[in-house]
């Protein structure tokens, strides 16, 4: 096991356990925030795994998760908006921490990959991941307040 895989294991273990704890306990608002954090824990782990196994094709998995993970959170934010309205607003400290962790991972991988097409792909994935998480947090913090029936 090399350093990349070790980092992925730590990220997956720590982030996954914390997210599992959050997603199974507490009020709905907290559960949805934990669901959102799942994406920001697993997606960098997938990027690290791709580097650790030396298979650039595995980056596709992280790219798809960065695209679809926030969409899944938007589903919950929209269709549970009634249950979320009395909860606390989105956890911005946690969101920016996750964004920072994602930035660190993507930067480290960019340095390891070196200039080229793979670097731009990594940057696209990172931008989608961080942007998606911030927007999903915004949606949880009352982004669907005006939604009634539709």
């Amino acid at each position, binding site marked *: 096991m090399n350093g990349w895989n070790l980092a992925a294991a730590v990220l997956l273990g720590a982030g996954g356990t914390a997210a599992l704890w959050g997603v199974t306990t507490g009020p709905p608002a907290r559960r949805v925030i934990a669901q959102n954090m799942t994406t920001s824990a697993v997606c960098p782990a997938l990027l690290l795994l791709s580097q650790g196994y030396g298979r650039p094709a595995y980056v596709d998995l992280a790219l798809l998760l960065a695209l679809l993970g*926030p*969409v899944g959170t938007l589903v919950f934010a*929209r269709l549970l908006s009634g249950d979320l309205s009395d909860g606390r607003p989105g956890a911005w400290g946690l969101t920016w921490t996750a964004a920072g962790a994602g930035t660190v991972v993507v930067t480290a991988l960019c340095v390891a990959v070196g200039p080229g097409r793979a670097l731009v792909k990594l940057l696209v994935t990172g931008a989608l991941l961080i*942007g998606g998480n911030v927007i999903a947090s*915004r949606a949880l913090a009352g982004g669907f307040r005006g939604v009634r029936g*539709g």
Partner: protein
Amino acid sequence: MNRLRLWLLAVGGAGLAVLLVAACLDLPDFGGDRHPYGDRAVHASLLRHTANTVASVNFDQRAYDTLGEMSILFAAVLGCVVLLRQARDEHRAPPEPAEVARPVRRYALLVLPVALVTGLYVIAHGQLSPGGGFQGGVVAATALHLLYLGADYGALERVRPLGLYETTDALAVSAYLVLGLAPVLAGTAFLANTLLPYGTFDTLSSGGTVPLLNAAIGMEVASAAVVLLAHFLDQAVEIEEEHGS
């Protein structure tokens, strides 16, 4: 009666457990270095210039199984369409427009085309990298529904002519069948990958019929998912039961 049912369940479960344990004891060890089937599959896929062995197994060596899976999806969606249709005692209320926060709406509009192109990329490169028709089709169908999440159901309905997707679904299934029948007309077996040149390894045109079958499956899955979600959305948002009936 209830007790009898429980006993029947217990006996059946115990029998299944015994069989599963017996089968597990006979399995080769986890992570061993002997893979008789894997070696042959990789060999066959390299012979046909398909870089992704899984795609070669799905769309070349076991293309007939994929035909079965595709028919299952087709039949399941057809069943859902029949079950979720608008009944006589129900009426349609036009969906209410929703006020979604501006950053969320902009994100949805921005990511929609990006996700769609990524889905098409996954479909087109099924024979080269992980992915294929099913994965890419689901991603492309999900991309379309960002319009519902980021705006309202009315917006989604404006860009989603449902009849077109139903037709595409059926056409894609027929395309798969035609691609399977073409080798029969040429004198070989159903779905045999012998008609097209195998191309250069690790390029878009490699693998003979694998990319074409991938594209057919991608079209089928994307339109099937759109049709399925359309009927779920109709039921959840638009269709209401008549009051007082």
